[in-house]
């Protein structure tokens, strides 16, 4: 592991966003704007909206703005599709200087017409980027007219980058999804159907959960938004229950659907054995069917018999190691703390980009004394606390990975680019294996030896 540099500087505005359990008692500052110049790891409103909506496989996702925003989000995520693959294309109006001066509406209209002509999509989502609001393009009107002209849904996604942070983008996405969902009067409620919110089918994760629930006798009506299509999203009000995996992005959607359609929701998590078992039982209990309960127990018993021994094997090799966590949302951080505990590992630093106050309360409750908790951390803080706390491993995204490696720490990619599932029983075993593969790799011991 790298040696800690003594010259760490603190930015005053950041101090209330960093807490050490047992040392400071006042609540952490979160859900605030990033401090300029601090090198935040957060993205923007557009990013949040795009992450949530992009897995809708049969939609044309058209980015209205200069080319960059479309370029940086082209097919970088690991969402899988069972059918359409239009979502893997990157469409942009590629605004030029003259469009900025004279307005981008005419070009946008041409682009929409061309795309309808070429791909005949059932739905088109038009994302606004930073400058669209500034140059005064009326996205709403253009989309409304295009809908009438082509007889398909063309929905504006009001995701100007500066208008908040990534979580505001989640909310924008939820509003768009609510516009896609059909009116309740067209629906008949299905007793054993549920919607699965906040799973983006990364590496087929939504499929794994679907198969578990199917076995119990519960049908996943549609996942929001992993491997979803417009026609199936529309039928969301017919479900009797919403289950929410990623609460950060979809908690709002669940609340709104409860208000509008009277569909109750459960916050669940399929990350780690403990959470998976508990979540399956809670879902099954909700339906109050003894047959479901017995099937659930049979499934749990069978899967645990397969995967628990595997995890125990890894646990023996990982016991006592220390983990640092820096992920997008609070729910994931919470699940990871529990998951590391299953592996006999302690979390010594935990942070999120956009965690909410109540999530930080849970985190505070879960971690041991001395654990550092931080919101919207920057590379300097991550470096400092990983080294100070003696972490052996970091869980994070693409930007954090090279930092961990430069510091000589193991790393787990817990992001949307992942190519193997981390959900459910099989996912828990994959996670344990990945931790073992990185922490116990032979490469680390070659870093310590110096040449004479």
């Amino acid at each position, binding site marked *: 592991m*790298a*040696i800690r*540099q003594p010259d760490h500087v603190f*930015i005053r*505005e950041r101090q209330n966003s960093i807490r050490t359990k047992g040392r400071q008692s006042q609540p952490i500052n979160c859900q605030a*704007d990033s*401090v*300029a*110049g*601090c*090198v*935040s*790891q*957060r*993205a*923007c*409103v557009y*990013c949040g909206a795009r992450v949530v909506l992009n897995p809708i496989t049969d939609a044309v996702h058209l980015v209205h*703005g*200069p*080319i*960059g*925003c*479309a*370029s*940086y*989000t*082209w*097919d970088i995520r690991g969402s899988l599709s069972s059918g359409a693959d239009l979502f893997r*294309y*990157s*469409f*942009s109006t*590629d*605004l030029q*200087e003259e469009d*900025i001066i004279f307005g981008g509406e005419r070009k946008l209209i*041409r*682009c929409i017409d*061309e795309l309808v002509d*070429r*791909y005949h999509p059932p739905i088109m989502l038009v994302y606004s980027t*930073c*400058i669209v609001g*500034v140059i005064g393009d009326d996205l709403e009107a253009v989309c409304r007219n295009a809908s009438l002209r082509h007889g398909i849904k063309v929905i504006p996604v009001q995701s100007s*980058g*500066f208008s*908040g942070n990534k979580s505001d983008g989640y909310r924008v996405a939820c509003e768009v999804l609510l516009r896609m969902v059909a009116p309740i009067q067209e629906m008949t409620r299905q007793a054993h159907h549920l919607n699965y919110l906040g799973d983006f089918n990364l590496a087929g994760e939504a499929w794994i959960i679907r198969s578990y629930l199917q076995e119990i006798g519960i049908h996943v009506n549609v996942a929001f938004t992993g491997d979803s299509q417009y026609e199936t999203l529309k039928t969301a009000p017919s479900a009797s229950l919403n289950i929410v995996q990623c609460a950060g992005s979809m908690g709002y959607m669940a609340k709104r659907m409860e208000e509008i359609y009277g569909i109750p929701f459960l916050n669940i998590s399929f990350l780690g054995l403990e959470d998976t078992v508990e979540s399956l039982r809670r879902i099954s209990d909700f339906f109050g069917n003894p047959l479901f309960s017995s099937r659930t127990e049979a499934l749990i018993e069978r899967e645990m018999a397969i995967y628990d021994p595997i995890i125990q094997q890894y646990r023996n090799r990982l016991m006592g190691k220390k983990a640092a966590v820096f992920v997008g949302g609070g729910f994931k951080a919470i699940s990871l703390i529990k998951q590391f505990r299953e592996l006999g590992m302690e979390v010594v630093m935990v942070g999120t980009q956009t965690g909410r106050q109540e999530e930080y309360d849970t985190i505070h409750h879960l971690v041991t004394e001395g654990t550092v908790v931080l919101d919207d951390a920057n*590379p*300097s803080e991550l*470096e400092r606390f990983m080294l100070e706390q003696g972490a052996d491993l970091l869980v994070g995204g*693409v*930007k954090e990975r*090279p*930092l961990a*490696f*430069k510091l*000589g720490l193991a790393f787990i990619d817990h992001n949307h680019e992942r190519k193997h599932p981390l959900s459910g029983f099989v996912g828990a075993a994959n996670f344990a294996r990945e931790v073992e593969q990185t922490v116990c790799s032979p490469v680390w011991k070659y*870093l310590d030896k*110096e040449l004479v």
Partner: protein
Amino acid sequence: MKADKNKVRSVTENPCNMCMPMGAIVPFKGIKDTMVIIHGSQGCATYMRRHMAEHFNEPIDVASSSITETGTIYGGEANLKQGLDNLIQLYNPQVVGILSTCLAETIGEDIGRIAAVYQTEKGESFSPRLIPVPTPGYGGSHAEGYFQALRSIVQTLSKKFMKHNGINVIVPHISPADVREIKRILELMQVQYTLLPDISDTLDSPYTKVYKKIPEGGTSLEDIEAMAGAQATIQFGEAVDDELSPGKYLETEYGVPLYNLPLPMGIAACDKFIELLHRLTQKTIPEGLKKERGRLQDAMVDSHKYNREGRAAVFGEPETVYGISRVLVENGITPAILATGSKSLPLKGLLQLLTSKCEEEALIMLNTDFSNIRSHCADKGINLAIGNSDGRFLTEREGIPLVRVGFPIHDRIGGQRIMTVGYTGTTMLLDQITNTLLTSKLSSYREDLYQRFYVNPVVSNDEQVRRNSL
């Protein structure tokens, strides 16, 4: 999903370029002790950092002024100043590059003025040099952003300087390994040089016991200051417009003669570079370098028959596309599609001239996207794609193998170590091209011939005869 090739599209589908500020970050990363701040919303910096981190496998720290709704309405000056305060405190840089974005430019932020005001407010003792570069996302591609920033760096930091024997070497966006190779050649030739920008260590830094927030390496400020007194500038930037050209600036402002060369890719371009160094310095060409050249010649002969079957689509930044095209032409590989997302007009002329003696007219596409490139692949009988990872759709959808060169390489490891310049780099690239062609051929020839002559022996049409009898 057939493309209508005759229609000019408004929509860009699967882009072949990125935006200006992305390109502008790179040269700043090649200046010693430098940090960059992007004046715009938080997402721009984060997306670009993510993209670059994946390519270089290095931590990429870039600050943002994090403009919010308030900043958009009332101006982002306060954000930028606070951002500068914080990043200077955290990183203690010698130079700070300030890049604008489409948002900043559209709301009328004058980063030059803000930088000047900031400097004045801080007074005499304030040390980092601030280099503002206007880089609106709609102003051009990342390739133009790169040279825009490089030119601003030279304009800001160079000053009237005593004449000396040094040679300025200005490089386009090439890999850290390429920069190292060019430096090795300069050192072999015993040339006194300043290479700008030097990303060889900063964006491919070795593991060290103590982590540094700003990696060691990069061109020093003193060296950049002295560029105005150099004997000559060699710039690998034939496709660069004069107003973006740092070498042109040094020539017109300080009378430093400019030699604009193609990247040393392919034997002729390497010769040009070495011969120019020899002419300028009168240093003898070392035996070792001559042997490298001989090995390239040997490799060209060894693989020429396989290469003749190659029909390539090349895409990427202008200088890279030109360099690769030169390698193709020298080796008898058909340069069937030569494409870039940039609007570089000089590139068009260069490629036309280069391919004018080819049997078949090359399809040259500026300001294009991957959908366009893909739509011509079948017609052109493309069996080889050369360029960055974004060309992977050509493999996935058209079955065309991709030789990865350029930026970004995000689906393979080691983008920072891909070396394609010099005699040795050209040899390595050529081997890779040949082996890619061989892999395709060896994996399919048994089945192809079985189908063609045993299962279904029909009379070939003219086109097949022409292709197969090459």
